[in-house]
């Protein structure tokens, strides 16, 4: 009972509000980072595992840094400090809190030292790559579905509308691009369908290709 009481007293002494504030501010910052980094597809990017890990990493880092600062006694228990830690996380992480110093007698160049900023940057890079690969995988799967379910003529019509209509794409090379794809004698129909589906996905967006796939699903089998 004494141990439980001690734990309960310790838990009650933690200013949870400050940690929630720091973590929450850091979470908002991380969400805005994902949205701006993956601008073409922010919602899909936020739904990936990489994004979940990245958001959790940011919250954990904000909580850890606030705890470190409080344990060093450098800051008081002010909500403004907690907010500043959450919002200023990217800058604070780069202030190099050393978590593992070089072994005594080892020169600094031996690279034994592991810094918080390096760990954070590496983990952040890992998460970004995961998001990137997940989004690419989703696009590939959608194109595969389009190749299976959509007719070449349907894909051609939509791609022409996008590339030659001048509403979405205005680049001069766009106008003859569909003809270039269709005119390739050595390409089989599947290859042409793949390129046209990628064109619709890239210039019309997920919504457009998804809409085409839904309509195709409703069609009775030929």
């Amino acid at each position, binding site marked *: 009972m004494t141990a439980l009481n001690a734990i309960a007293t310790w838990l009650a002494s933690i200013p949870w509000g400050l940690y929630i504030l720091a973590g929450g501010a850091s979470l908002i910052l991380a969400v805005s980072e994902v949205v701006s980094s*993956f601008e073409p597809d922010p919602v899909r990017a936020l739904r990936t595992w990489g994004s979940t890990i990245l958001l959790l990493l940011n919250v954990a880092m904000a909580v850890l840094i606030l705890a470190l600062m409080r344990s060093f006694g450098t800051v008081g228990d002010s909500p403004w400090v907690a907010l500043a830690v959450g919002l200023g996380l990217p800058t604070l992480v780069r202030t190099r809190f050393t978590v593992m110093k070089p072994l005594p007698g080892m020169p600094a160049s031996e690279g034994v030292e592991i810094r918080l900023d390096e760990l954070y940057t590496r983990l952040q890079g890992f998460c970004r790559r995961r998001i990137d*690969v997940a989004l*690419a995988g989703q696009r590939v799967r959608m194109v595969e579905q389009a190749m299976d379910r959509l007719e070449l003529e349907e894909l051609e019509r939509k791609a022409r509308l996008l590339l030659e209509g001048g509403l979405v794409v205005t680049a001069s090379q766009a106008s003859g691009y569909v003809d270039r794809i269709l005119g390739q004698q050595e390409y089989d129909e599947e290859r042409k369908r*793949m*390129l046209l589906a*990628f064109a619709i996905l*890239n210039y019309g967006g997920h919504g457009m290709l998804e809409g085409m796939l839904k309509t195709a699903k409703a069609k009775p089998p030929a």
Partner: protein
Amino acid sequence: MEESWATLRELEDNLSDEEKAILEVLGQVGASTPAELAVRTFSLPEEINKPLLSLKEKQLIDISQVKGRLGGDLVTLNQRGLQMRQRLRLGRRVK
């Protein structure tokens, strides 16, 4: 490690227009298959093989494998490629 300004400048001078276009697309879209890069640059897939290999040799991109029916290569910008893309964008803004 950050590349020196002189090294990146020398590398930039050796980039073709196609290579610069691919770096820009990778920066905008993220990881892409060669077919997607071809569509994004209004090229045919076989036309971008050479610039892709050249970018790989220049250590600006990484090429990994992707599963699925369209399985094959997945192209991503590496740290050096990101630096180069930022440099190219900055250059365009200055001009």
